[in-house]
């Protein structure tokens, strides 16, 4: 489904303000020198100029569905006053999935959720916490009005106006915004909104998309990246050389919209405790440290190899050739030593043998039947295989 609506800036903010009564509306907000996603009230939204809500966020909006830390289960035991040997324990599952509108993320960010969905929802085990929040979240994405120097969504099978993972995709045109309603969830969100029909603006939208896409430098061909990076795995000298400058700080993984690893810890006392799930990072030594004290990945070169391989080799091997990097470039902009994953990938591929075409993973269209079905309202299954050439409009 796809239908176009037109909103003036004032109508757009008024609509958002209306949504904020009854659900959580997360928008990009300037905080200090950074831009972060924050819930905003109806008053705040109607007072905000639309431009303030269109900034690209410093950290990724992943938090909306996969928070930095969440309580998986909490328990409380109360001793009987007469007989302290009797204890009543109550267990609480505090999973809260507030209805949420995530407004203003970019196509790469929205696509990040599709990357997270595969391990969290489409594998043998469904993650109920992630799933509940994912289902309760409607994603309203802004087609990029301009590209950042560090953007490379077009390397990984996407483009700056990609609707994959979004429920609504809006594009700035002369005088306002054209909203492309992509899913049922998106349709529900604009129900009753006083937006004009936007079908006459289709050309302006296409022109805007084209202009942004043309600002991207040509992309290298990554169709054999998975095999080539896998072949590089044992080249210790390569990984050591390329990671000399890495600080093992982990900023890249915590900023990434697709980094999906977590750790589980227990907090509290015998009578009152909680089990927490929080982000973890393969760039830190603790990630692989075993109880015995042995660490199978003691060196930053092995950790970087894991990060690059996971995004460009393990994940695509497992999930029909899709990369788990969406090319947002956050890890490049914010790395304190300017380590560039684009360089890592191209350098790792250089001079390596790819797989013979016959062995290349089958096209996803033939495979989707095997993968478990997405929940009814989950966004449409991804269509663009990462290994196909980037789709330019």
């Amino acid at each position: 489904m796809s239908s176009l609506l037109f909103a003036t800036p004032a109508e757009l903010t008024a609509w958002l303000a209306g949504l904020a009564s009854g659900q959580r509306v997360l928008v990009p907000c300037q905080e200090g020198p950074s831009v972060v996603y924050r819930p905003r009230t109806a008053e705040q939204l109607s007072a905000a100029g639309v431009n303030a809500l269109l900034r690209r966020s410093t950290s990724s909006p992943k938090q909306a569905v996969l928070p930095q830390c969440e309580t998986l289960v909490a328990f409380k035991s109360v001793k009987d006053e007469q007989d302290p040997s009797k204890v009543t324990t109550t267990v609480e599952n505090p999973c809260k999935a507030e209805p949420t509108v995530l407004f203003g993320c970019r196509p790469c960010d929205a696509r990040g959720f599709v990357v997270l969905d595969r391990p969290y929802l489409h594998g043998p085990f469904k993650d109920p916490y992630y799933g509940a929040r994912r289902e309760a979240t409607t994603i309203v994405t802004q087609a990029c009005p301009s590209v950042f120097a560090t953007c490379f969504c077009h390397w990984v099978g996407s483009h700056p106006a990609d609707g994959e993972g979004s429920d609504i995709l809006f594009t700035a045109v002369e005088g306002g915004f054209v909203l492309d309603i992509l899913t049922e969830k998106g349709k529900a969100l604009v129900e009753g909104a006083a937006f004009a029909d936007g079908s006459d603006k289709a050309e302006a939208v296409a022109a805007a998309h084209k202009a942004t896409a043309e600002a991207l430098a040509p992309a290298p061909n990554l169709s054999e990246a998975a095999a080539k990076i896998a072949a590089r795995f044992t080249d210790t000298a390569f990984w050591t050389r390329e990671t000399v400058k890495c600080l093992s700080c982990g900023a890249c993984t915590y900023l990434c919209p697709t980094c999906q690893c977590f750790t589980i810890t227990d907090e509290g006392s015998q009578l009152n405790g909680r089990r927490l799930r929080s982000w973890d990072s393969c760039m830190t030594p603790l990630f692989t440290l075993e109880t015995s004290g042995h660490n199978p990945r003691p060196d930053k070169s092995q950790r970087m190899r894991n990060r690059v391989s996971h995004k460009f080799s393990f994940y695509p091997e497992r999930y029909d050739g899709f990369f788990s990097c969406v090319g947002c470039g956050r890890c490049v902009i914010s790395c304190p030593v300017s380590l560039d994953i684009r360089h890592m990938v191209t350098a790792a591929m250089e001079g390596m043998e790819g797989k013979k075409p016959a062995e290349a993973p089958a096209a996803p269209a033939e495979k989707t039947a095997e993968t478990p079905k997405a929940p009814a309202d989950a966004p449409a299954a991804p269509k663009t295989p990462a290994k196909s050439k980037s789709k330019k409009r």
Partner: protein
Amino acid sequence: MSVLAGKELRIVGFLCNWCSYGGADTAGTARAVQPTDLRIIRVPCSGRVNPLFVLKALMNGADGVLVSGCHPRDCHYSSGNFYARRRLELLKQFLPVIGIDPERFEYTWVSASEGQRWKDVVTNFTARIHALGPAPRWEDVPARYDMPVELLESLRPLGCGEHPALPELKQAIKDALAQGLEGVLGWKKGFDAIHAEPVFMTTPEEVDSLIWGPFNVQNLAVFLPQYKGRKIGVVVKGCDSKGVVELLSEGLISRDEVQIFGMGCNGTVNLSRILAKLPEGAAIESCACRGNKITVTAGGQTIEMTMAEVAQDKCRLCTKPNAVISDAFAGTPTTEPEAPQDGRLPGLRFLDSLSLEERMGFWKGQMERCIACHACRGACPMCVCRDHCVSDSRDPEWVTQEDTVQQKLFFQLIHAQHLAGRCTGCTECERACPMDIPVFALKQQFGRTIQKIFSYGAGLDVNATPPLLTYQVEETTIKERDLA
């Protein structure tokens, strides 16, 4: 901890086993009437009191914390309380920067026979805390997000033009490589013209890629300990060299394993300040540096800026632009300006102007957006524990994985506390923060207090003893407050 609602406050006492705990016992045996708010934790010695104990109590809702040990010269372990005095005094003067009233913390001395003195100490301290009332809670203070940028006038003219001695520096490095040095850490152009990245140069070609200028922001001293046992070199700016000195003085690297290459520094940039002047996200097409002007072409626009607008704060106040230690120094040293007398410090000046509660609100607002990545730790040359940071430990468990402001700020307190007397002020922690959180201010608060009390700055002398690793029997610059 049970608290009689409205009557008692939460006061935590750390008492040394040999004197003050005995003193409290004496008071008890004598049936001295004393307030009951104090919850006592017995420690072997006041020297055992890690300032983080106090910070943790205060961050988690204690209304007051009292440390009491043996009188100076009376320590059961002869000098534990001498060290404690320095640490605790420093801690007391640190507290206001995070918005905690320093009056909520005190340290004192009570001997085992001084029952009456103990009674007076407890009574007076409890009365003081009651006068202050319950401590403000992090949950209740309003968060604030303002952080005015103050572009301080620099102590000397900063520049960004090509350094005339760069060929000389390259030659010196090539010679050293030829003589068997395994490699030299330096900078080369990064993914665009305004980003530099560290490089480990091992061949003459790689040495040719070496750059020197306003974009060489990274402090390469951070990499040195991982090369221990190998003979390597490092190129340093003045501020970086202080990190090298500190690593040497702590024995984390050996002088005969590292060759230091220096050159006079004319300042480096704060990249966020440059990026803020360019069209958002625009690709850098070119960048030219001449005199004190940086001209960047990005997104089709050409924008000119001066070092006065974009230099890092530390460079504005830098008094050591030449390596304080080096084996090879290329070119003539840059003139070193005198340290300013007015104690001007950006960041802290703003914090100083806020009330205590506003400062809590400030940190609450800042730490909210911390993603707990710990890049601040990774970039710090003096965070030498590397893979064994206490904040990663479950036992002791200083911080949990919870993403609350208190937990995230507590990590910063650990960093600042562990850097007290060791931080060289390179500000890499703050530069590395992807969320632009002004975490350096916490270290700066320790730094200026150490300067004030001990007239000491870290990283200047390999043979100096850091102030917290020594003591004087009579501390002339510490004015103790008697509670009895």
